[in-house]
């Protein structure tokens, strides 16, 4: 008679029915809501509870909703501006922490990571308090020569500056941490070899250090893009009547009931994020193996 218990290797977890079931349930819990969101964006029903047939009219409706499109454009614009600046600042911070030794380095690293750990609500309130302070101070100059400054910052996209600045503040530490982690694996001899072969400090950075960091930089950029795109709490505190973002807009719409055009707009957002992720992963793929 064969032995009852089959011996399973450490990598044979695919053979356990319980694990398969567990994995399946996890998968459903994770993706069913998203799948439902996408499916119901094509639902021909105003109240969007029961399936009443396929339509794309809510995509058209969302597209024709000026305030929704504006919020959407704002979100993408903020995310792009935030990504560019946060990636540069975050990468520079990572390089600085990696490259130099200075007093209280550990403390600086800790403080840098603060925006990641402090509750978003606190950060939102803090930013609001800061901005109202700055606004109060600026109003004092309204008749003075700095008045043009206020004018300037009411023009799109500069009027998104306040939100963008807040987004940069909380997303650049993520970039810094990702890039820093990447740099830990850097062989310092590569840098020395470059200099030994006649390259300047700057040439070494562009030709040797940056290509090595690139996967980390791309991952960090992607992270800050998605963080900025879907941030609600901090944006909620810093958004004005003229500067709505998509999540804040969706929130205000949802209070009046979920209509399929929100589903449609959300689906578009998911597709954009997905495409960005795929592009970023493709970019990272060739540099998978480093010596």
């Amino acid at each position, binding site marked *: 008679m064969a032995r009852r218990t089959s011996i399973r290797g450490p990598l044979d977890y695919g053979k356990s029915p319980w694990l398969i079931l567990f994995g399946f349930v996890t998968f459903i819990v994770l993706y069913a809501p998203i799948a439902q969101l996408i499916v119901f964006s094509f639902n021909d029903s105003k109240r969007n509870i029961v399936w009443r047939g396929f339509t794309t009219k809510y995509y058209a409706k969302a597209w024709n909703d000026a305030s929704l499109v504006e919020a959407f454009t704002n979100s993408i614009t903020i995310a792009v501006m935030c990504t560019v600046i946060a990636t540069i600042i975050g990468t520079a911070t990572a390089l600085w922490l990696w490259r130099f030794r200075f007093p209280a380095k550990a403390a600086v690293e800790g403080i840098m990571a603060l925006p990641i750990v402090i509750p978003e609500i606190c950060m939102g309130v803090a930013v609001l308090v800061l901005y109202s302070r700055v606004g109060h101070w600026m109003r004092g100059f309204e008749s003075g020569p700095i008045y043009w400054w206020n004018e300037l910052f009411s023009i799109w996209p500069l009027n998104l500056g306040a939100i963008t600045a807040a987004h940069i503040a909380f997303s650049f530490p993520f970039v810094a941490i990702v890039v820093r982690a990447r740099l830990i694996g850097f*062989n310092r*001899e*590569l840098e*020395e*070899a*470059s*200099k*030994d*072969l*006649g*390259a*300047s400090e700057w*040439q070494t950075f562009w*030709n*040797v250090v940056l*290509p*090595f960091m690139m996967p980390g930089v791309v991952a960090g950029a992607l992270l800050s893009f998605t963080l900025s795109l879907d941030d609600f709490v901090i944006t909620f505190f810093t958004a004005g009547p003229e500067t709505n973002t998509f999540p804040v807009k969706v929130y205000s719409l949802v209070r009046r009931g979920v209509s399929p055009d929100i589903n449609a707009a959300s689906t578009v957002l998911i597709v954009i994020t997905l495409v960005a992720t795929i592009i970023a992963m493709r970019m990272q793929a060739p*540099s998978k*193996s*480093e*010596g």
Partner: protein
Amino acid sequence: MTKPIISIRNVTKRYPGVVAVDDVSFDIMPNEFFALLGPSGCGKTTLLRMIAGLETSGTGDIIVDGHNMEGVPANTRPVNMVFQSYAVFPHMTVRDNVAYGLKVTGVAPADIAPRVEDALEMVQMSAMADRKPDQLSGGQRQRVALARALVKRPKVLLLDEPLSALDAKLREHMQLELARLQQVIGITFIIVTHDQDEALSMADRIAVMEKGGVRQIAGPEELYEKPHSRFVADFIGKINLIDATVSGVSKAGVTCVANGLGTVIVPHDGAASGSISLAVRPEKLTLSAEAPPPGSGISAKGVIRDVAYYGDVSNVFVTCDDGLELAVNVQNDRAAAGLLENGREAYASWHPSDTLILQE
């Protein structure tokens, strides 16, 4: 007399709490294959990196081809380095790696291609020019690192433990290869190694370093046959060191009382006094079952404690009086058969002129 290609003058490098390189001075001649040999932490790599300009803030002068390198950054020095990890750029092809040093210094593109091809040819890597480093073996990466440095036509090529990451067979092969390359190109090679076999087999001259200082600079044979100190004698090959006290110096040599040997006279043409070490290489000793005739040399009676068999030779350890341990290399010929048994009494003997007197 030819001018040295590199002059090291009173070079010192301190790290907090350690003196990595301690007041070192020596010259390296053009076309020399020079080795810096020593145990880890002796300062040999630091010295090499100082020559390359990768380690700064030391004192003393490093003169390369008549120019003082003080304040000259690494990227403009006429030397190139092969790194221990090879440091081949992972995101570039073999060809781009080799071309890198020419591109960044603004060599005309028309000149780069032929020089790169020549360098790749020289290290027999032309067939793999379009590969990425992760598709290469360790030995091939090393060749790329070599070509990358040589394509710059340096006055001196610096090699930091270049063979330590290779397996034994390949290491032996690359030793020959490096020696061949050095002769073909005719530039100075400075190699850092902790492997005495590597240094002895490749280098024209070897500087043995210990604790930041140079203990002896000599050719391989002189270093092996006539070490100046216990450290060098012990570091280069195997040697029996026997404590002794000098009791007199005469024309015939130094008379001394040695541990386990009694009073012996050793030919020596220098001064000697106080406590010394008598040093004799294991291959100079012979082992016999019978006592050698008196007056034929120095001998000690002992018991064979251990026999390590290496095929052609056996390393035999003999325990003599007063705790004296002698290592003897015995050729595994007919005479040795039957003699090499643990616990057997035997006589280890050697000619007095094979004995070195080490004062330090």
